[in-house]
């Protein structure tokens, strides 16, 4: 039995002192990020690395190491990925994947979801002035650029849409806060959802949303 006890003590020591040196952890993060086409969260990195590793710290080092190189360590939402430097895109005609051309309606709907998220279908219709076709939303869902968010706590509890990590990855955004022109739009009050005065004609017969509370989520998402 004393043998077993010795062994246990050893294990304890392992967990206390034997997390890999940070240079080694950096190599591990490097290998995992290189291997994956999809962004990997810090949580998942830690889960795959030996006990006691600190992927977040290793990432800081790794990111610096790849500054100015042909590939970069980029942040995508709460995950990390390695992507080629955009200035070298011209070398990659071979790798270019022809993405399905999005309709104007789809592009506008996507932008509205990105800048106004979480946003209901009725709110999108209010902004665009026309009803949103099912196909448009379906297409964006299928591309995994948008997903369902929380339901609004308004009558009818309508579903909301938010953009995904895939969206951020595709457009090279660290977070939804980095959307181009977001600050200007907010300063100009264009992200506020102003309730239309009575008698105003409205687009579509979307869900009956209480517009007063419609923009509550927006601030939540973008405020730090």
């Amino acid at each position: 039995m004393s043998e077993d006890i010795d062994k246990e003590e050893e294990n304890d020591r392992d967990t206390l002192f034997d997390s890999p040196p940070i240079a080694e952890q950096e190599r591990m993060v490097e290998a995992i990020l290189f291997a994956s086409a999809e962004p990997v969260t810090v949580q998942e990195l830690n889960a795959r690395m030996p006990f006691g590793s600190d992927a977040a710290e290793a990432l800081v080092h790794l990111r610096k190491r790849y500054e100015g190189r042909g590939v970069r360590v980029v942040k995508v939402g709460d995950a990390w990925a390695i992507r080629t430097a955009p200035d070298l895109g011209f070398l990659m005609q071979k790798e270019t994947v022809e993405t399905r051309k999005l309709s104007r309606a789809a592009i506008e709907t996507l932008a509205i979801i990105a800048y106004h998220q979480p946003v209901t279908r009725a709110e999108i219709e209010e902004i665009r002035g026309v009803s949103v076709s099912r196909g448009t939303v379906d297409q964006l869902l299928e591309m995994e650029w948008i997903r369902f968010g929380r339901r609004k706590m308004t009558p009818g509890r309508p579903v909301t849409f938010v953009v995904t990590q895939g969206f951020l990855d595709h457009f090279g955004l660290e977070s939804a806060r980095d959307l181009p022109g977001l600050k200007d739009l907010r300063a100009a009050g264009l992200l506020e959802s102003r309730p239309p005065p009575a008698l105003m004609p409205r687009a579509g017969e979307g869900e009956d949303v209480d517009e007063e509370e419609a923009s509550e989520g927006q601030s939540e998402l973008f405020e730090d």
Partner: protein
Amino acid sequence: MAEDEFEEDRQSVSERLAAEALIVDVDGFEGPLDVLLTLSRTQKVDLRKISVLQLARQYLAFVEKAKALRLELAADYLVMAAWLAFLKSRLLLPPDPSEEGPSGEELAAHLAFQLERLQAMRDVAARLMARDRLGRDFFARGIPEDVTRVRKVRFTATLLDLMQGYARIRTRDEFRPYAMDRDAVWTMEQALERMRGLIGFAGQWTDIASYVPEGWDSDPARRRSSLASTFAASLELVKEGRVELRQAETFAPIELRRRD
């Protein structure tokens, strides 16, 4: 600047195009708000300084033109026309203090806000789509190495398992042959055996239910099984010519009598 020199010309071209589009291609517009936004561009001013009154007039003219050309206009276009006509009258007439609801200026301001917001969304959408994009300007790993899943089985047991296992050995019951649990089954053989011994006394018509063994009539499963086997045994005895059966009507008791 040279650009300014061409401004006038270019505008007139785009205006002409817009006018043509308005006339022939109503379907190309995404609803009344889109038309209004297009019309507002002909005012050549910042959307914040737009004349909603002028815009209302332009829109109404557009609807009139479409009507003259017998174009089918969707209901939203007509609703918007009616509303703009109403807005126009509010903007033109001095405010009536007895009137309820928002003022013409408030309505106009909101319309201007909607147009500005829609234009802003279109602008950022264009900026978004012009960004460096994954799969076009920058690229993900070409040969991803998939994470292989290694399944590791961990066996476990509880103290109860252990005790039961030991108990099993000590009672040597592990070679008990497999048998269906027959606690609630009264077989036809059993019924036949029981009835053979009893029918000698059945000189009178007797309900076959009375041949169900004692203690088998309370539990539903046992009652069902014993009744079925008693009935089947009765049929068997009829076949042998030892008894006869009768039933007064559907669902009435089935009675049995010895055949002499």
